[in-house]
């Protein structure tokens, strides 16, 4: 394939929040990092992202993503829309990712925010057993607190009980406001419902929550997300201070201004700032794999040996490719529309 060059205006994610690794923006991963590294983004809302994002993510070394069920921005008004959303997480979105060499997993749950619509919440809870045990569902999540209302607590607890009953992991969303109290209460509830801390991933941590979460033996995930959550320079310092045990980096990229390349870019920054490569590998790949592979629904052979999975899993009749060839080698071979 011939190499093509293109201008900055065609670069994906020209985002001043993040250091662009290279002026010639999407370069193959090996050139980006001077290392051949694989990444997992264990918290990203791909249904809000484009197919082009998948292409660039794969080029930057992302081999697997986990898409937690969450809020779509527009509140849903009936259980049917949740049903279709859950179906797309285990169906279409997984297929779309596979077309670009990315393994897609998901977590299923009623998110904290929408637990406040109680009539709806009760119906959604009834739907969960239809999805919780499907292939590639790695946890119940993301659940937890938003406003810390009674309704949120009620449906959080119901879902913890379901996770315990089905012997599943849990992914916890910690609130934007009153985060520390929300994180602590979430962990206490998990223990109360009989979950082992090793089965629970607490996400959206910051400098204020990390000690408590690690100290209690839970997995501590960090969302590299502009303004509201963790920054990647701050993340470097967290890893410098706390090491790499049970720490996980993710993007939580969604319909907001966010970066689906946050994990590899943070890895780059860690390497640039002297974090040992094995620590970078742990927080950007291995820990997510160790945490989520406990379900048996996610394993490295899924992406290291992908031909073994696809035979029965193709949506051949309906492709995102619109006549293009799958398995495109690089972004630069794709961006020009001929």
């Amino acid at each position, binding site marked *: 394939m011939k190499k093509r060059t293109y201008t900055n205006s065609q670069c994906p994610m020209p985002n001043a929040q993040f250091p662009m690794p290279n002026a010639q923006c999407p370069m193959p991963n090996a050139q980006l990092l001077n290392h051949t590294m694989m990444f997992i983004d264990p918290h990203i809302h791909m249904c809000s992202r484009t197919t082009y994002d998948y292409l660039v993510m794969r080029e930057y070394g992302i081999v697997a993503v986990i898409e937690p069920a969450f809020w779509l921005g527009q509140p849903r008004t009936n259980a049917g829309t949740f049903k279709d959303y859950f179906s797309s997480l285990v169906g279409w979105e997984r297929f779309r990712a596979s077309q670009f060499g990315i393994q897609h997993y998901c977590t299923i749950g009623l998110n904290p925010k929408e637990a406040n619509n109680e009539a709806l919440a009760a119906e959604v809870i009834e739907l969960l*057993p239809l999805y919780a*045990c499907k*292939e590639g569902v790695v946890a119940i999540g993301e659940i937890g607190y938003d406003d810390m209302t009674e309704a949120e607590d009620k449906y959080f607890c119901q879902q913890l009980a379901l996770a315990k009953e089905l012997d599943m992991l849990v992914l916890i969303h910690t609130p934007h406001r009153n985060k520390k109290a929300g994180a602590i209460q979430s962990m206490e509830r998990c223990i109360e419902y009989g979950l082992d801390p090793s089965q629970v991933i607490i996400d959206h941590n910051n400098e204020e929550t990390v000690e408590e979460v690690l100290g209690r033996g839970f997995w501590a995930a960090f969302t590299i997300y502009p303004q509201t959550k963790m920054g990647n320079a701050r993340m470097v310092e967290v890893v410098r201070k706390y090491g790499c045990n049970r720490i996980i980096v993710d993007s939580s990229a969604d319909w907001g201004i966010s970066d689906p390349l946050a994990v590899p870019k943070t890895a780059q920054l860690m390497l640039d700032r002297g974090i040992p490569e094995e620590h970078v590998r742990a927080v950007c790949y291995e820990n997510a794999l160790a945490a989520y592979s406990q379900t048996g629904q996610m394993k490295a052979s899924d992406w290291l040996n992908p031909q073994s999975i696809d035979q*029965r*899993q193709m*949506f*051949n*009749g309906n492709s995102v490719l619109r006549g293009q060839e799958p398995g495109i080698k690089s972004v630069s071979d794709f961006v020009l529309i001929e």
Partner: protein
Amino acid sequence: MSKVNKLLHHWLSKSISEKAFAWLEQKQTQIYSGAAEKVFFTAFSAVPRYLGKEDLQLTFQDLEAAEDVIPGWYPGNWSVDQAGRTLLLLALPRDDAEAYVRVSFGEAAPTLDQVFSTADMGELVALYQSLPLLPHPELHRHRAAEGIRSNMSNVFQAIALRNPYPANYLDNAAWNQMVLKAVFVGSPLHLIWGLDQRANPELARMLANYAHERWAAKRSVTPELWRPVGRFADSTIITDLEKVLANGDTAEQQAAALACAESPLPQAQALLSCYPDLQSSIQQGNLTWNDFNRK
């Protein structure tokens, strides 16, 4: 235990661990004794977690036994999770016809309907493959027609290919759509069970029209397209066959010749006699539709 149950049990006992088998039997028993819906839903989804997804290892005798129980049933390409899921479907309460309607396609508490409408790809394949084995199969006509509309080729194939359900239960409109779609998506037609028995004049007309569309776009048509056409060819279609015999590649010519041989029209026999080599190959049994079965 029904014959189908016995066979599936026997095959699974050869293919999965004792522990996995015990899990499956426990779930079957719970579902059979009227456990809550949740038990059925979670177990149905969780089957690959416990049984894995290897292919069933079936012998020629196993396949014959399947064919003896339900003509057209071909589990030769089934995996252990598909067999396990079928056993769970067969464990659903079925004695009360009214209740069975409800669980299969009712409105009040539609268990099976809910499973279909929330199924992932692997589950859909298992569900559609199992249709010919389920009790009260006539209740699933609408569901089967829906499966044919799927845009997932493996789901479409689970119902269209190596499955006796469509030939036995679909009406002509749905059947014809299925055959036409199989041609459209490039599925091998010889794997459609009952294709020759369910050939009909409307299907022949639809297939010939489809060939015209392809020719207009300067695209080829699969020679198998002519297989359900010959017996119902009218004079317009004989003209098409004449064109294929004159201009087609070898396989297309052979297919057109076979179609002519199957036509009762004197016009078709006259056309075939212009190609004495093909005619004698057919008469001597050296050229049959089996020659078009793709490897």
